[in-house]
C-alpha cells in the first residue's frame, strides 16, 4: 500500500508542476521589483486586486484571455499528435483575414447566417494555412517546425498586402482635410457579423456592467471549443487515432491507423483553432482587420499550451492566468506612474515558462530514477 501512495504522490506532483512554476516565477518577479526599488507586495496587490477584484477587472481579463485560449489550443492539439505547430501566428493571420473579408463582403446577410459564415471562414483560413506543413510532413517528412515558421512570415506579408487591397475608405474627417486613409486596416465588417458584448447580455438580464469593457461572447465560444477539443481527443475515434500517432507512430501504424492522414488532420484542426481568434479580435472588438491586433498571440499560445500541459482545460486556466498578468500589469504600470514597466509582465511570463520546463523535467527525472529499478 505504501508504494501505491508514492505513485499517487508523484503523479500528483507531475500534475501540479505548473502551479509550482507560477509560484517560483512570482518570487523571481518580486526580486526584479525589489531591484527596481518598489515594494513587491504592493505591486502584486495592485495587480491581482485590479484584475480579479471587480467586474471590470474580470471582464478585461477574460477579453485578454480569449485569443490565448484559441492559440493555446492550437499548439496543444497539434502536440497531441506529436507535432510542434509554432505556426499559430500565421494561421491566425490568414484565418482572421478570411473572417473579416466575409464580414465586410456579404453585408446583406442576416446575423444568423453571417456569424456562422465568418466563424467557418476563420477556421477554414487557419486550416488551409496549417494544411501545407501537415501535408509536407506527412508525405515527405519535412519538419513541421521549419515549415510553420516560414509560413508565419508568408502569412504576415500576404495579409499586409491584402489589407492594402481592402483598405478602409477615408473617414469624413479625412475627406474634409483632403487626406487619404493612412491606417493599414480594412473596412469594417457588417453589423450583422458582430458578436454581442458581455455588457449587452448582462443588460438584458438586468445586471449592471460597464459598456466600455470589450469582453464579448467570443469567450464562451472559446470555452465551448475547449470542451469540443477535449471531447474530440478523448471520446472520439479521431482523437484516439491522433493521440496514438502522437505517442507512437509505429504502434499506430501497426494498429491499422493511417499515420499520414492523422498528421494532416491534426494540423488542419490545429490551424482552424488559430483562425478562431477572429471571433474575439474582429467580430467582438475592432470589427476590422489590422495586423497589430493579433501580433504575438500565436507565439504566446505556445507558452499557454506548455503551462496548461497541453490539456484543453489546462490551456483555459493558463490563458486566464496570462490574461490576469496582462491586464494587471497594465494597471500596475499606470498606478506606479510607469515605474514598473509593462515589460515586467513579459519577464514573469518568460520565467513561468522556464520554470514549467525545469520543474517538469525535475519531477520526470525523480520518477524515472525511482521507477528504473522497480
Amino acid at each position, binding site marked *: 500500500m505504501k508504494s501505491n501512495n508514492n505513485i499517487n504522490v508523484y503523479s500528483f506532483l507531475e500534475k501540479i508542476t505548473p502551479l509550482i512554476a507560477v509560484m517560483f516565477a512570482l518570487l523571481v518577479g518580486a526580486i526584479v521589483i525589489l531591484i527596481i526599488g518598489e515594494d513587491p507586495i504592493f505591486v502584486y496587490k495592485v495587480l491581482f486586486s485590479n484584475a480579479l477584484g471587480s467586474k471590470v477587472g474580470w471582464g478585461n481579463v477574460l477579453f485578454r484571455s480569449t485569443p490565448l485560449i484559441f492559440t493555446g489550443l492550437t499548439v496543444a492539439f497539434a502536440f497531441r499528435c506529436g507535432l510542434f505547430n509554432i505556426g499559430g501566428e500565421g494561421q491566425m493571420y490568414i484565418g482572421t483575414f478570411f473572417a473579416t473579408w466575409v464580414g465586410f463582403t456579404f453585408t446583406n446577410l442576416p446575423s444568423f447566417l453571417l456569424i456562422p459564415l465568418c466563424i467557418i471562414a476563420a477556421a477554414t483560413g487557419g486550416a488551409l494555412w496549417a494544411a501545407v506543413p501537415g501535408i509536407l510532413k506527412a508525405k515527405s517528412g519535412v519538419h513541421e517546425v521549419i515549415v510553420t515558421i516560414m509560413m508565419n512570415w508568408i502569412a504576415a506579408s500576404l495579409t499586409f498586402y491584402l489589407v492594402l487591397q481592402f483598405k478602409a475608405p477615408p473617414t469624413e474627417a479625412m475627406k474634409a482635410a483632403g487626406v487619404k486613409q493612412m491606417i493599414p486596416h480594412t473596412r469594417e465588417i457588417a453589423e450583422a457579423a458582430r458578436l454581442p458584448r458581455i455588457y449587452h447580455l448582462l443588460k438584458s438580464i438586468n445586471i449592471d456592467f460597464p459598456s466600455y469593457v470589450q469582453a464579448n461572447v467570443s469567450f464562451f465560444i472559446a470555452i465551448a471549443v475547449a470542451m469540443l477539443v477535449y471531447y474530440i481527443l478523448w471520446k472520439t475515434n479521431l482523437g484516439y*487515432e491522433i493521440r496514438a500517432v502522437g505517442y507512437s507512430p509505429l*504502434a499506430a501504424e501497426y494498429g491499422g491507423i493511417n499515420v499520414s492522414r492523422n498528421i494532416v488532420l491534426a494540423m488542419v484542426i490545429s490551424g482552424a483553432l488559430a483562425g478562431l481568434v477572429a471571433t474575439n479580435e474582429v467580430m467582438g472588438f475592432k470589427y476590422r482587420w489590422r495586423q497589430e491586433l493579433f501580433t504575438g498571440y500565436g507565439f504566446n499560445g505556445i507558452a499557454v499550451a506548455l503551462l496548461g500541459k497541453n490539456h484543453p482545460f489546462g490551456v483555459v486556466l493558463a490563458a486566464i492566468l496570462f490574461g490576469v498578468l496582462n491586464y494587471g500589469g497594465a494597471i500596475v504600470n499606470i498606478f506606479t506612474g510607469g515605474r514598473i514597466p509593462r515589460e515586467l509582465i513579459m519577464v514573469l511570463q518568460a520565467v513561468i515558462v522556464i520554470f514549467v520546463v525545469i520543474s517538469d523535467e525535475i519531477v520526470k527525472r525523480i520518477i524515472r530514477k525511482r521507477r528504473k529499478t522497480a
Partner: protein
Amino acid sequence: MPEIVLEMKNITKRFPLVVANDKVNFSVYKGEIHALVGENGAGKTTLMSILYGLYQADSGEILINDKKIRITNPNIAIKLKIGMVHQHFMLVPPLTVTENVILGMEPKKNNIFIDIENATKKVKEISEGIGFKIDPNAKIESISVGIQQRVEIIKVLYRGAEILVMDEPTAVLTPQEVEELFGILNSLKKQGKTIIFITHKLNEVQAISDRITVMRRGKVVGVKKTSETNKEEIASMMVGRKVIFKVKKNEHNFGKNVLKVSKLNALNNKGLPALKDISFEIKEGEILGIAGVEGNGQTELVEVITGLRKAKSGKISIYERNITNDSPREIKEEKIAHIPEDRRQRGIISQFNVSENLILGSHYDKPFNNGMSLNLNIINKHADKLIKEYDIRPSDKDNLLKSLSGGNQQKVIVARELFGNPIILIAAQPTRGLDVGSIEFVHQQIINERDKNKGVLLVSADLDEILSLSDRIAVIYEGKIAAILDPKKTNQKELGLLMTGSVQNKKTNLEEVKK
C-alpha cells in the same frame, strides 16, 4: 573450503515502488562461475548495480577478500577489479577494437600522444590469453555482435578485472556463439577469474555454472551447487511454483492451406533486398516456426505479411484471397492476429492505458465505436473482461501500459490479438525478455490457437522455443529459406549451422514436402 572472494551481506535497497533487494546475502568463491538467476524484476540487476557502484544500498555491507568496502561509483568498482559486461554494449561503432578498449584510460606517449601500438599489442595478448583471435584494428561497426561482446570482455580485462559480472550475455548470440562464449568463460575461469553470470535461461545455467543463486521478489530463495540440482528445481524456485517445461502438444491432422506466400521479395530499410523469393504455406492447425539469426529477413517477412512493409514482388494470400500490399487495416480485417517483434515500439502505446491498448486496431469498429465517438462503456467492460481472462496485473484498466511489467504488457497484446477469433496468428519473438511464468503462458496460448485449427507463424531467435512449438521449421538465412525441416528429425546444432549459412543445399527432411 574454497576461498570467498566477494561477499554481499544483508543488502537492502528500497525504491519508492518496491523493495528491490530485501536483506540479500550473496557470496562468490574465487575462480568459480556463479549464476545469478531469477525472473525479471527479481532484483538481480539491482544487486549487481550496487556491486558496480551504480546504486547505493540502503543498508548492508560488501566485502571483497574479507575487507569491508564502500563502492560509491563505478570507478571505485573498477579499481577494486570488478568489471561489468552490460547487456547492451557500450561501444563506439566507428572506432576500432583497440580504440574502444582503451577508451577512458588511454595509455600515453610523452604525456600527449596515445600509445596505440602498445595498446594494440595488449589487446592481442588479452584475446589470445583467453583463446580467440581478434583484429585489433577492425572497426566495431564491421564486426558481428558475438565479436562485439568479446570486445566488451577484453575491455573489462584490460581494466584489470578479477571479478566479471555478465548481464544476460547470451541474449544476443547464436547457439554457436554461445558455445564459443562458454569456451571463453571457461578459459577465464582457468586463469583464476571469478565470473558472475546473470541469466534466466536455465539450460545455460546448467551448462556453464558451478553454483547458482536464485532470487525471487528481491530475496535470495536459495543457493545450489549446479551438480546437485536440476532445471525443474531451479525453475520452481524462481517462480515459486511448479513449472511445466514440455509444452503438451497433441498430434492432429492439418487442414487446408490458410496462408500462402509465394516468391516474395521485399527491401529492408536501407533499400537492399531483405527477402529473396520466399515461398511457404501454413495449414490450418499448424505452427510454422521460422528460425534464423536476427536480421536475416524475419522482421521484413512479418512486416510484409501484415501490411507494414510493401512487397516488391510475389504474392501473399489467405485461403484464396490475395492480400499482397493491402493496408495494415485491411489485412487486420482478414482476421490476422499479430504479436509484433518490437513490443515497446509497435505492440503497445505506453502512454495509453490498458483499456485503450486493448482496442488498438479495432477501435474504429463496432462495438467499440458507434460512428464517431468511442463507446467507453463497452470499451471498459471489454477491458475488465480481458484483464480477468488473461490475468493481467495489476488488474486496473486505467493503468498506463508503461507501468506494467514486460510480461503483463505482452499479455495485453496477446489478449487483444486473440480476441475476435483470428484465423492466423503471427507471433514474432513472442517471449523475448519475458520471465519463465509468462513464457509458459504465451506458449500455451500459441498451442491453443493451433489446437483450434488456426494457422500460426512463429518467428523466434530462441531455438528451444522453435523446436518445442513448431510443427514444421523453416530456416531463414540472408533472406532465403535455407531449409524446411521436421522438428522431430532435427536439433539445435543442425539448425544453428543452417542459420549461419555453414551448411547449404539441405533443402528438407520432410517427406511430404517433396511431393
